[in-house]
């Protein structure tokens, strides 16, 4: 009987240790994302131009796994978010996600394995900032990722490039548009922007 107890205790200890090892730190999680994207970009079977859509689908799913676009939309719409119905929130999130992906996908595709230095990470409760620097040939681009724990998982909710926050950039624009126009107008503008971007990046 005693032995069983000891064995049971050991099993519990092993489980606890394992769960600690699984809970990765934000910077390691980001490294995984960047590595995954780079593998997709390097993948020779996805390189040809007729595979563009497939390649982008892969990249999108990688980004979606670590970025929380609902939190981003919420922060970008700021005071106007609470006034929206659930359906509108959903629609806006997918529009905003589309817009961001269209804007940044070509930039991501131009990534050719430049070194990404992880400078430091700070964790403050459920929030974390990971500071990175992209080492381009001629310039260093500082890029900070802001993460927060959503359902006990680290998710990116803002990206700060050269000290400029992505969320704040869109928040200022959205507040300006919504201050003088309607929400429907903003949705229309976003849709137009997405279609015009899509035709450009094809």
């Amino acid at each position, binding site marked *: 009987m005693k032995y069983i107890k000891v064995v049971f205790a050991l099993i519990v200890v092993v489980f606890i240790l394992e769960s600690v090892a699984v809970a990765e730190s934000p910077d390691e999680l980001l490294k995984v994302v960047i590595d995954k994207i780079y593998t997709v970009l390097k993948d020779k079977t996805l390189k040809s131009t007729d595979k563009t859509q497939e390649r982008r689908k892969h990249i999108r799913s990688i980004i979606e796994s670590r970025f929380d676009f609902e939190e981003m939309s*919420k*922060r970008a*719409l*700021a*005071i*106007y*978010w*609470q006034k929206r119905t659930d359906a509108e929130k959903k629609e806006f999130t997918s529009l905003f996600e589309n817009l961001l992906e269209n804007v940044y996908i070509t930039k991501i595709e131009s990534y050719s394995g430049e070194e990404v230095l992880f400078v430091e990470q*700070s964790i*403050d409760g459920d*929030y974390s900032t990971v500071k990175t620097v992209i080492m381009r*040939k*001629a*310039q260093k681009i500082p890029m900070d990722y*802001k993460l927060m724990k959503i359902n006990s998982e680290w998710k990116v909710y*803002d990206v*700060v490039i*050269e*000290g*400029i*926050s992505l*969320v*704040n950039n869109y*928040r*200022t624009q959205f*507040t300006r548009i919504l201050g003088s126009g309607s929400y429907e107008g903003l949705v229309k503008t976003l849709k137009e922007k997405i279609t015009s971007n899509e035709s450009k990046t094809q």
Partner: protein
Amino acid sequence: MKRFDIEATVGLFLFLGILSMAYLSIKLGDVHFLAEKGYAVTASFAKTGGLKKGTSVEIAGVEVGKVSDITLDDKTYQAKVVMVIHKTVNISEDSIASVKTKGLLGEKYIQISPGGAKTILADGGKIRETESAVDIEELISKYAFGDVK
């Protein structure tokens, strides 16, 4: 009796003069005898770019508070800015504080873009999202001369 009246009037005017002088120097010198009305919130910046105590904190160009203290955090080497915000102004937890410049080369001030979170910052709260002062010189040198390989 008449003489006394004149003296009293002169004295009264002198007294009024001193009072106005005192009022003027307090007003113009921005001296605060009592603690400022409002609540304090903090924010950390990587770079404040010459932000000074007493500069205004603005939302949409309207002053909603003042910078009351700037210190250096000796662990992270970041600037910790304490702002006193008017009691009537609510600041949600996901607001963003940015160090901005008035005009192209003007003085620095803090601008808050209000967020939409339901949690409102209380006294001693922290604005987590910040944007540091953008160093124009640095940016110009980076993108104008950055192509030297």
